[in-house]
């Protein structure tokens, strides 16, 4: 079947069209490869963030210095991964690869804002998150990383990664689930202050989300239902604490319980 070869020969392999498409091939492959590397980084970040959250839940209500330190280490490790993302994105349009790393970043927001709440009992702002994602670009000393983009003019400069407002929102929406878990844990541990604090905080976040309503993207609205459920669980827990706390121990047979104060500290009795 010699004709096919003939036909092929018709197409000059070095014609302008073919030359152009060779360029396209390289361009597309480069893009896809970068995308794939980012997906992998994102998966790593997701897993490590989830483990950080589990770690933080290991504390009972009072901040535990050791656990906090360990979580800080883990978050440092995650930030190294985010730095790698930042490196990949040097000179790129962040939004072009956004879908590749958004799951990991959201999970990171969830983890670090959870840690922050435990330490500070406040909401970590987007600005604060982004401030911690400014890195010194000491690429040479790290060498081993697989990133091949070598921009000589970038060396010694500052690298940074910017979490988008939407990723921040989505991370915070997930945070509320962890806060709910923390609340129920606190009740189980006999801590009756934390639940009320958490309830207050969650209501603020819930009010914030209702204020935004459906002006955000679809993914945000979708998480509203879960958020509302979490708030409901926390409100129920506080309600129970209040109801049982206000019960007058009519049938009290023991002598220890004479003051209201004693009722709020049941753990001493238990232990």
């Amino acid at each position: 079947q010699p004709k096919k070869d003939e036909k092929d020969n018709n197409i000059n392999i070095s014609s302008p069209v073919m030359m152009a498409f060779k360029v396209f091939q390289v361009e597309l492959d480069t893009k896809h490869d970068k995308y794939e590397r980012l997906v992998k980084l994102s998966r790593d970040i997701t897993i490590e963030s989830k483990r950080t959250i589990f770690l933080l839940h290991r504390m009972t209500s009072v901040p535990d210095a050791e656990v906090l330190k360990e979580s800080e280490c883990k978050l440092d490790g995650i930030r190294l991964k985010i730095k790698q993302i930042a490196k990949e994105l040097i000179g790129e349009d962040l939004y072009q690869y956004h879908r590749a790393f958004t799951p990991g970043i959201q999970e990171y927001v969830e983890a670090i804002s959870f840690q922050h709440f435990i330490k500070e009992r406040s909401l970590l702002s987007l600005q604060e998150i982004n401030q911690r994602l400014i890195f010194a670009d000491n690429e040479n000393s790290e060498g081993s990383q697989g990133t091949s983009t070598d921009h000589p003019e970038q060396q010694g400069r500052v690298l940074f990664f910017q979490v988008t407002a939407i990723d921040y929102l989505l991370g915070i929406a997930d945070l509320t689930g962890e806060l709910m878990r923390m609340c129920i844990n606190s009740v189980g541990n006999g801590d009756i202050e934390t639940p009320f604090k958490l309830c207050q905080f969650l209501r603020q976040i819930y009010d914030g989300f209702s204020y935004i309503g459906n002006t955000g993207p679809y993914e945000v609205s979708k998480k509203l239902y879960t958020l509302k459920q979490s708030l409901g669980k926390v409100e129920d827990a506080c309600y129970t604490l209040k109801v049982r706390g206000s019960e007058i121990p009519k049938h009290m047979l023991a002598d220890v319980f004479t003051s209201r104060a004693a009722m709020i500290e049941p753990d001493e009795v238990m232990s």
Partner: protein
Amino acid sequence: MSVNEMFSSIQEFLSADHDVREDIRKVVQVLEQTAREILTVLQSVHQATGFKDIPSKCLRARELFLTVRNHLGDLKTKFPAEQYYRFHEHWRFVLQRLAFLAAFVVYLESETLVTREEVAQILGIEVEREKGFHLDIEDYLSGVLTLASELSRLAVNSVTAGDYTRPLRISNFINELDSGFRLLNLKNDPLRKRYDGLKYDVKKIEEVVYDLSIRGLSKVQESETAYEK
């Protein structure tokens, strides 16, 4: 008339229609914004401190409803009255929400069920379809069902805030509502599904009343209140 001419005139028509929809969409967005503001105001009653100044919150909400009336007045001018159902989907959601908010305000003020007439009056629209821009009956019912679930939350939080008598009143109110709905023969549609949720609200509130009752808390406060008087 040539084919091209006919299609040109159709395009004019479609453009006009498109413009109407754009106009409606914009007003609806503003309405949603105001509705969210009212929600923020009323939602704060759930907070521990919120139970104290319910009247002032209601006043603030009433003010915002005046803005809503203006927007709805504006909305009416955007399309011919008889095409209400042609564009219904555009405002259906926000109208259900506003119906709920009106029902919530009225409940907080007087602990009564807002009537369809009252909602219409608060929103500055009609009750009867024939008279113009009106409140569709299913949208009214949907708003009332949202109220029920909001009240079950309120029953819980009022206890947390130390108000032990409110849940019983809410319970009676919800029971009446439930009997009302049982008179209706709803189709298998979204409204029916939402109605199925009502029984969970009823149950939830009954459990709150139970919790208070078994601890003698409702009675205690009642007598306390009695003493105060």
